[in-house]
């Protein structure tokens, strides 16, 4: 095993360990804004430990689809995370075009949860599933628009250096999020800064945060993601909670990958980690200062993100 792989494994391990810290940070920031003490920073860890020790209750109408959902979703998220460059180290599993696999692994995880929700036969969960499917269908083109822009940039950079043998490798997540993009915007390509902004919006949408969904509400009729997982309990719920934390880390790492310049390994990794934690705090601030959008307005938010992504794409092509 070479040094790069070892370093990557350390980073992956860090991500797996620290992911449940992100919801804790968000909750702390929200509590401070509201003038409350807030729950402990490590609450998600305590919840996971508690849920793993609990038994499970399964509805009479549910089949194996229901029980399989959380496992599939967690596995898919883990696989997607393993394709990402973490802390500046390229993923050993990366290959040209792996961003497609990563995006659809997340899609598969969502699909498994939607099936599990529909399997319960509850009208609430059916509504939640339909909302989740509708909004993720709108979020997907936005994600691919940004990927399109990043691949074209990455190809440009490779052509520029004249190493045509690496053209295929330029289409991997590791090439797109390894720090080259940051170098480019630091060199004056300001339009590239639109990409992290769009990723931040996607982070809010995909992780069901305010202004799209309210993770704290108890009102079944307004929920999107939370209502889909109402019937899960015990270890399966733990998998969902942990999977959600990993997904948050995934999107935060994507955003951070576009904001950290290539530095010596440990410095880049440290900076990346700091940005990820700062993003969690930023989510907390967003949740504290604004109300939720009504459901019919969410497509407008995603449309705005798509417009930003298109603008960035056009500007990169014009150069």
């Amino acid at each position, binding site marked *: 095993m070479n040094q790069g792989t070892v370093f990557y494994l350390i980073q992956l391990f860090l991500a797996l360990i620290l992911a449940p810290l992100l919801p804790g940070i968000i909750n702390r920031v929200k509590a401070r804004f509201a003038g409350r003490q807030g729950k402990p920073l490590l609450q998600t860890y305590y919840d996971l430990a508690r849920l793993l020790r609990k038994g499970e209750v399964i509805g009479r109408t549910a089949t194996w689809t229901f029980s399989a959902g959380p496992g599939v979703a967690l596995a898919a998220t883990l696989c997607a995370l393993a394709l990402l460059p973490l802390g500046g180290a390229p993923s050993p599993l990366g290959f040209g075009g792996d961003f497609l696999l990563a995006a659809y692994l997340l899609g598969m995880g969502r699909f498994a949860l939607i099936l599990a929700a529909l399997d319960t036969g509850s*009208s609430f969960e059916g509504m939640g599933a339909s909302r989740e499917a509708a909004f993720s269908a709108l979020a997907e083109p936005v994600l691919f628009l940004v990927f399109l822009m990043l691949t074209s940039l990455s190809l440009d950079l490779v052509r520029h250096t004249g190493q045509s043998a690496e053209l295929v490798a330029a289409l991997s997540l590791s090439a797109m999020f390894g720090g080259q993009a940051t170098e480019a915007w630091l060199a004056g390509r300001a339009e590239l800064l639109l990409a992290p902004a769009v990723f931040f919006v996607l982070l809010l949408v995909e992780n069901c945060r305010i202004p799209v969904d309210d993770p704290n509400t108890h009102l079944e009729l307004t929920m999107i993601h939370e209502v889909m997982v109402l019937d899960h309990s015990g270890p399966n719920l733990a998998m969902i909670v942990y999977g959600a934390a990993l997904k948050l880390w995934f999107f935060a790492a994507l955003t951070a990958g576009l904001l950290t310049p290539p530095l010596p390994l440990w410095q880049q990794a440290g900076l990346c980690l700091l940005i990820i934690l700062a993003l969690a705090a930023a989510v907390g601030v967003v949740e504290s200062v604004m109300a939720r959008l009504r459901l019919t307005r969410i497509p407008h938010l995603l449309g705005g993100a798509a417009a930003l992504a298109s603008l960035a794409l056009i500007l990169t092509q014009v150069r």
Partner: protein
Amino acid sequence: MFSFDYRQPADMDSLPLLDAAELRRRVIRAVDGGWRMLAFFGLPETARPGAPAGLCCVLAHDATRTLAALRTPPLEQFPSLTPDCPQAHYFEREMYEQWGLEPVGHPWLKPVRRAPDAEGDGESAAYPFYRADGDEVHEVAVGPVHAGIIEPGHFRFQCYGENVLHLEIALGYQHRGLEAMLAAASAYGPAQTTARRLLLLECAAGDSSVAHATAHCVLWERLTGQDVPERAWLLRRVGLELERLANHCGDLGAIAGDTGFLPTSSWNGRIRGDFLNMTASVCGNRFGRGLLRYGGTAHDLCPEECEDLTTRLRAAGRDARGAVDIMLDAASVRDRLNGTGALNRADARALGLVGVAARACGLPLDARFHAPVSDLPGTEPCLEQSGDVLARALVRSREMDDSLALVEADLSRLAARTGARTAATPPAPPSRLPARKLAVAQVEGWRGEICHLAVTDAEGELLACKIVDPSFHNWPGLALAMRNGQISDFPLCNKSFNLSYCGHDL
């Protein structure tokens, strides 16, 4: 039509007996002419259980501060008023359930208070829920057990995708026979009767304890002609307005919470507690129980207490103003509230809505203004026109300012008149009521106009005692506000009405 001043009890013998068709004609004509239905109920011949009952309808004309009463001899069936007068809808269903009088031609005749059976069979199978048919129409049932710590109620939505075609609300899970218990209180002897009735009414709707207790005391005082000293009126109003402040503050926080706007949600939860604690300083109970007595109040305030309360009131008022302003100034909150759950003025009037919900539609209905219980200087109704959640929030926000000013003025008047502690010794309640009288008390609780009504028989015994909580008028308004709305807007819309389940169920 037989009309009388709202403060005076009416003489039952001077009320002509009409036949049902004539009553229907007169009520519909009056409602078209700007009168409003206060209560429509079955009036038994004698206090004996199972006595045959006739109809009795009490109407109010707010501009002239006049009431009118109409009644019929005992009957079993009558032509339904609802098709021409939607205000009668719930009253007629209640009449059918409570007295067995059948409104013939009622469009949706089913009990209002009998809780549906869990499986939908048994007796309630005869009263199915309204259904919209179609391949893509789906039904969503919520409750009676909810995800929050709230009262039980069942909501049945007919949805087309996210759009609500129809909402039917089934209540009655909290029905405990309050009106029967009020009547039965006389079995405890004359000394105990009034005290027991007051206790019962203080928990008619626990968040409106002072308002219901005030309505009951006013009703009895009007029936017996008892005068109440000004100091007692000041204390009663301090209790009423503190109740309004606490609940409006809590409601605005709950609306903020439902939009996901955390700061106001958290702060208002705390500030509501401050107002409740002030009520506790006045009478020893955070919800104002035990404050009122027949003919006066059970507690009084010395100047030092008034000063202390004023200081706390100013601080809490400042905090509340700040918290609410942050919410109402946030563009995302206004966008969320604007246009959500909108009711138009004509529908609000036709359904007979009262209180905050009616004022948000531009109807100038505020019993403090059109039926003041005392001669103290009062307020003007706070009106908004748009009828949506934002309007209901704005009405609450402005009423908080009014209430703060009222309480502060009342406290300074109380502090200025030391020595005259007349309120501390309320008179003994009368052992006998005057015979054959009908009295009405309208009190503006924080949710809306509370109406209590009593009719006595020839022996001075209670013949009928009717409690109409504002929730009884307003639940149909919530169902209508949801029509063609988004099902995801329901919790927010529900919070903006914030109706009482137990006040409706009695």
